């Protein structure tokens, strides 16, 4: 059995250290070691996006990344996007526009949408659909997810303008 690796990561602003087998997937390290059960395992072949987190500023499917690859990285999960007292705009608009049903895809969906709005703060509907195409949902038919993201963009841009 190969030696365990000493892994150091920063997750949602917290420094974390642990020993892990190199083959451990990032999604399991987050879920089982750090108890961050927001990101989920859906397909395991990088098609569904339920495991989406942000690693060093990139949207990443954490079922297709070994924990060793993430060693030293800064990671953000759904748990790091908002807090019960200060929800992320997307967390509010997803609820407002019924952008979720069973909730299983939602953490990955919102985490990806967060990054999408950083890449493109003012997307068209088509750009949202293309930019969210790495995340599958079986419940909503996407229409309200798209609506939720466009609403979040509008709110964030409105807040930006108000601040300027």
């Amino acid at each position, binding site marked *: 059995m190969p030696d365990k690796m000493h892994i150091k990561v920063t997750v949602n602003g917290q420094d974390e250290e642990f020993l892990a087998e190199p083959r451990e997937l990032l999604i399991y390290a987050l879920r089982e070691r750090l108890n961050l059960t927001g990101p989920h395992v859906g397909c395991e072949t990088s098609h569904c996006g339920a495991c989406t987190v942000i690693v060093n500023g990139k949207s990443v499917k954490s079922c297709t990344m070994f924990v060793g690859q993430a060693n030293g990285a800064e990671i953000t999960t759904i748990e790091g996007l908002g807090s019960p007292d200060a929800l992320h705009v997307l967390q509010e608009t997803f609820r407002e526009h019924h952008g979720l049903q069973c909730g299983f895809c939602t953490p990955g969906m*919102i985490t990806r949408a967060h990054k999408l709005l950083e890449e493109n703060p003012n997307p068209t509907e088509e750009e949202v659909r293309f930019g969210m195409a790495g995340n599958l949902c079986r419940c909503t038919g996407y229409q309200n997810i798209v609506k939720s993201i466009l609403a979040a963009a509008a709110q964030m841009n409105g807040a930006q303008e108000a601040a300027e």
Partner: protein
Amino acid sequence: MKDEVESRDDRVANLKGLGSARKRVEDVRFTQGKGNYVDDIKLPGMLHGDFVRSPYAHARVKSINIDAAMALDGVVAVLTAKDLEPLSLHWMPTLAGDKQMVLADGKVLFQGQEVAFVVARDRYVAADAVELVEVDYEELPVLTDPFEAMKSDTVLREDLEDGADGAHGPRRHHNHIFLWEEGDKAATEEVIDSAEVVVEEMVYYHRTHPCPLETCGAVASMDKVNGKLTLYGTFQAPHVVRTVASLLSGIEEHNIRVVSPDIGGGFGNKVGVYPGYVCSIVASIVTGLPVKWVEDRMENLMATAFARDYWMQGKISATKEGKITGLHCHVTADHGAFDACADPTKYPAGFFHICTGSYDIPVAYVGVDGVYTNKAPGGVAYRCSFRVTEAAYFIERMIEVLAMELNMDAAELRRINFIRKEQFPYQSALGWEYDSGDYHTAWDKALTSVGYDDLRREQAERVEAFKRGETRKLMGIGLSFFTEIVGAGPVKNCDILGMGMFDSCEIRIHPTGSAIARLGTISQGQGHATTFAQILATETGIPADSITIEEGDTDTAPYGLGTYGSRSTPVAGAATALAGRKIRAKAQMIAAYLLEVHDDDVEFDVDRFVLKGAPERFKTMKEIAYAAYNQAIPGIEPGLEAVSYYDPPNMTYPFGAYVCVMDVDVDTGTTDIRQFYALDDCGTRINPMVIEGQVHGGLTEALAIAMGQEIAYDDLGNCKTGTLMDFFIPTAWETPNYVTDHTETPSPHHPIGAKGVGESPNVGGVPAFSNAVHDAFRAFGLRQAHMPHDHWRIWQIANDLGLHD
């Protein structure tokens, strides 16, 4: 006083009751990643289970050697059928009266079948140990085609006594499961034989899979000290699971607690009992430690319950004017290796005999032959009531084919055959009593909304342009009018493993006027915590925001049959309304006492009881609740609680009218959905926002099924569609926007008139998408082409019609 200044409208709005687009209470958790799904559960000392599965579709298992696996550090146990046999758990009953191997007993019958169960310290060791279990197989001939299976000498189920009856009567071949018939065969054949117009067609609804984003899983925890088993799992029917677990294991039912935590989508996949659940329980009993089993996506697609796989041979007859006179259908149903259909016991083909659809058809016959093959077992209701999607697809294809034969517009053919409003309650030729409907109004609204006549004109122009060589794209207008049958069901007709299909609600009003209600159902994303509180708010006058809804824990919730077949609203929703009414009846007595008047002198008004004729004298529900606990009221027990078990007098019959407009590229087989209009009538509308979301989601699953999603096998029985690369689930990019609309025809027998909606869009959506593809080629003579309509199959249609020449 605040109450004094609040208008009645304000008080109604404050309740967030029926009809309110109330925001979902579940979402607060889900959007923050604080859902609690099975794989999130972590118990001290928990072990992990993983399966050794068969690579072959049909083989004899000559030997299983577990030595190398057991020798691996961290492996605790490897279970095989031999270990389960002394407990009589190597086979288990299916929901359809058949039995199914839990672990391979002498042979395997489908690829991916469970052969051995490895239990280890963690999921990594378990996966390694799976590789070390040595199984010696001897391959046997494979049957993947049900028609071949009915002719073959190869016996699939050697455990069944040759010639003996099955659970649903005589079996006429060793690979035959049942013949189930309904309707008047002789009369139907007579009508068809002498009809002016008859069309005959084989309509195949291919094998697919519900594929919820969360796979199936369980955590079993046997507490040997006090003899209690706790089982967490992805169960759409937790109470039934408890009963089955008790019957199978011999553990008394009060010592079993089954918990369905949050469920990441079900769509029928999580109704049945799978070997993984049984093995987790046994492993926990054997080891004395909690055992988790969560399947991966390939296992989910290859081994858990599939849906559909119905070969429907239909004949429909009509007058020259287009009045339908008779319908005949024979189905060859591929059930796979075990009959594990999720159907009420009496109905081995579910409610397929709703296949006369929305039409007034005087005489009809249906016969369904169930057949064993070397494929995974199942036959579940994937986002539909039992076999209703198959039925709706069948009749909506037959109507289109008949319209072609009659050279009639398919919309008009539907219109002249619809059951008329005044015919309800309507007795169908196949034995159903349709509760209510107004099909003509819905149809006219739909056709007007989409500008149907203009679409047909545009389509005709497109065909001409195509013939002139100016375009390579054809245009299809997909029509669908469906009638669902949901809310199983009257206990006299419907049971699952002997459990009558009632459902239940138990309400406790707290002294301060808030409440908790528990139901026998379980949400998998439908938003029960939101909508059931709305029903109660309207019934009891307690704001929905002050009502907690709880489901899924068999230690606390009243017994119910669970959530599938759009039964939650029709059955548990009715129980909820009736329990609410019991609360209200007692509250009325308390209010009268407090106001020092007779019970009959007060009446309910939104959130209070008022003195008739003097509404300034009233007691709010909040005041009444407090009084129920702090006053000694003569002749009335303290407390304010109610329980209702509801046995519905009939099913409910939601319906809808869908139109899909699609461009089809003849050269590549690609399609572009330009427009999709969905009108749903689900009776009384509880929460329009939730209804719209259900329709969007159901339509997208219909899109997937119609346009590409399938479970396909090669000739050796290898599953070719085991990952999400090949099993088609559309992304946001391939999914169109939908326009939703409604009419509202309440159910006359449901306490609040609601009919259920979650499955309608899948039932009606598939024919709409498929009919659009067919319709695009109607001008060139296409009568019937099998789904899924993926690129190459659409291209094949065009190729067969000579459109590439």
